[in-house]
């Protein structure tokens, strides 16, 4: 308060008294005021009671059926999610994003939800995670499919579920999505950046794990009948960048992402009018409205292949078109072969 003490001292006592009664800022009343004490206590303890009840129910069900019906670890995961969200709401401005706009704490708060999708919904089986280095730069190259980029999300989650030393994977996205509201904000905040050679170089120079989908929207927007047939791998730009930055290339094959939204047709004119790469028609979208956005629970397999050590080449080799295209083809072949092998290992689409 900026009132000078001298003013207060010299003011008549009567006026001071009147003033003190007129304070227009009053402390907010407690929200639960007026509720009976028992109800208030119940409200406060509701989460604890719910947990207790769930534990009880889980034990009873296990005794009755002999199977684990309610997995308490998963339940705790979701409780952790709620807790983390509350923590985030209270951290105010005391956080820092990196130069790309990546907010690790915010991103990690979503992990518990993605882990449920990873373990229970798509039952992802990951092999070859030991090929991903625990430290230092590396470029993950994966096939891209399934309308929405759930494959990227699952590769990121796999690094946290399977790897002994979890790391954040920084994916590169088409600049098109960086111009879209909500998406641009969400993607940047969770560590993605524009698929620009300059950005890739900078990320690799910071010893990050970078994920790139050379197929781009050609991969996600391909019709269902072409599933698991890899598209053209850009112009091999990712190989040049990896050679220049001295980062090994790790091919990644993802199986299962093709079936989450079986794309029957593409409404190209609508897409053109809306400025989108494609507008899919699936058996459920757009017929069921928002329900059509629910991905199908296909069985997923992710395989991380042996690294291709392109860092052994001199940086000048990045300008050698023959070498770059040969390496890009090698990566594409590895991924394609991996996709077919993992398809064979899968019994059916959903098991």
């Amino acid at each position, binding site marked *: *308060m*900026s*009132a*000078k003490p001298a*003013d207060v001292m010299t003011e008549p006592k009567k006026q001071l008294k*009147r*003033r*003190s*009664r*007129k*304070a*227009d*800022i009053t*402390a*907010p009343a407690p929200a639960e005021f007026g509720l009976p004490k028992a109800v208030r206590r119940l409200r406060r303890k509701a989460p604890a009671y719910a947990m207790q009840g769930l534990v009880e129910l889980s034990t009873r069900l296990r005794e009755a059926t002999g199977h684990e019906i309610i997995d308490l670890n998963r339940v705790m995961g979701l409780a952790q999610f709620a807790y983390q969200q509350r923590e985030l709401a*209270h*951290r*105010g*401005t*005391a*956080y*820092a*994003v990196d*130069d*790309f*706009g990546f907010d690790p704490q915010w991103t990690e708060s979503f992990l518990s939800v993605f882990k449920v999708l990873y373990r229970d919904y798509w039952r992802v089986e990951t092999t070859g995670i030991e090929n991903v280095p625990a430290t230092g730069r590396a470029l993950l190259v994966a096939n891209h499919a399934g309308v929405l980029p759930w494959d990227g999300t699952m590769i990121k989650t796999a690094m946290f579920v399977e790897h002994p030393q979890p790391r954040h994977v920084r994916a590169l996205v088409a*600049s*098109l999505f*960086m*111009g*879209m*509201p*909500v*998406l*641009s*904000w969400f993607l*940047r*905040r969770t560590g993605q*950046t*524009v698929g*620009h050679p*300059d*950005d890739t170089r*900078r990320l690799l120079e910071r010893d990050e794990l970078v994920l790139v989908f050379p197929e781009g929207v050609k991969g996600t927007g391909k019709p269902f009948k072409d599933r698991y047939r890899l598209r053209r791998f850009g112009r091999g730009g990712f190989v040049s960048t990896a050679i220049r930055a001295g980062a090994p290339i790790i091919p990644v094959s993802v199986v299962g992402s093709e079936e989450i939204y079986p794309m029957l047709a593409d409404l190209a004119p609508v897409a053109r009018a809306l400025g989108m790469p494609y507008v899919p028609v699936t058996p459920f979208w757009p017929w069921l409205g928002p329900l059509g956005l629910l991905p199908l629970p296909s069985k997923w397999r992710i395989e991380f292949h042996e690294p291709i050590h392109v860092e052994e080449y001199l940086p000048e080799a990045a300008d050698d078109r023959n070498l770059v295209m040969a390496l890009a083809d090698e990566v594409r072949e590895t991924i394609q072969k991996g996709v077919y092998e993992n398809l064979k290992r899968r019994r059916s689409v959903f098991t």
Partner: protein
Amino acid sequence: MISSPNRVLITGVSNPLGAEVARRLAPQVPHLFGCDVADPVSALEEMDFVHADTRHAVIAKLIRQLSIDTVVHMAVTVDSAREDRATHETNVIGTMNVITGCTGPSSRVERLVVKSSQAIYDAGPTDPSFFSEDMVGPERQGSFITRDLRELEQLVGEFTLRNSGCDVTVLRLGYRVAEESTLAKYLSLPIVPTFAGFDPRLQLLHDEDAAEAIVRSVIGRHPGVFNVAGSGVVLVSQAIAIMGGRPAPVLLPYGRWTARFGLRAMTGISLPGHLADVLAFGSVADCARLAEEFGWGPAYSTRAVMDSFARGKEAEVIEAPSPTQEYELQVFLQRRRRQELRGQSAASTSLVTRR
């Protein structure tokens, strides 16, 4: 060739940044001249002030008559929302006149420092995350300030090519939130209309660092084009929260002029076109070249600039408002707003208005 500057002319010396540069240069150079259309804010004994407009050819004559050897060209307007003749004349024609004064056999100018801006990059969704100095291309049609700056730098570039005897430094200063800049006014609104679904990165430069960079390029010898901006970034929502405001995502991201019109109708702030792009897509410059060549970098990080600005506005910087603190913060902000509305005298009695 003289290694240290002897007779220095500063154009646009009356704006706060120009005054700060003059104040820092005064003890370091023997003769200091300043020119502007307006009177300087504070008198500086060591500086000779000349009323002169860079938009007139007389500036070229002035440079010759005073036998200037170092020109610091700061009469460049960036923070202007209206696309008017005067801004274009100041930025392009003014620079042309200054360059004319530096050219020719009778000129003794050996060093030219030009203040440009990061606005030359004009943010967009397809841009890489960091702008380096060579990323200025004619591909995109930016806002009029961007076009002006591009033309200005082109003139300077041509001059550099033709006059190898003259060291030319172009400093692309980052966005600043000091004094009455539009960005500062925008961020200190109590409820800030932002672009719906966008929360870009913001990179800022402290005025002290801006002045220091200009002084260093006058005293030292660093020809070339340099980005100057604070390290690190803050998100727009974070910056608003630091200022104690609340973001309101109401501006439509499509059609930049509708958003600018809406903002003017709601808050009375007219946003320059390039700033609207920055607030939608973000603009971050890579200052590696500056660090390498100058051996110096801005002392204030972006976060520090934001915090010092908030402190300057007498808003408490609360690191993490817990629920109990939040109420106190609201009290504080209400009081501050009332003080601004009614002035200091009314504010002293403002706690007592309602029974």
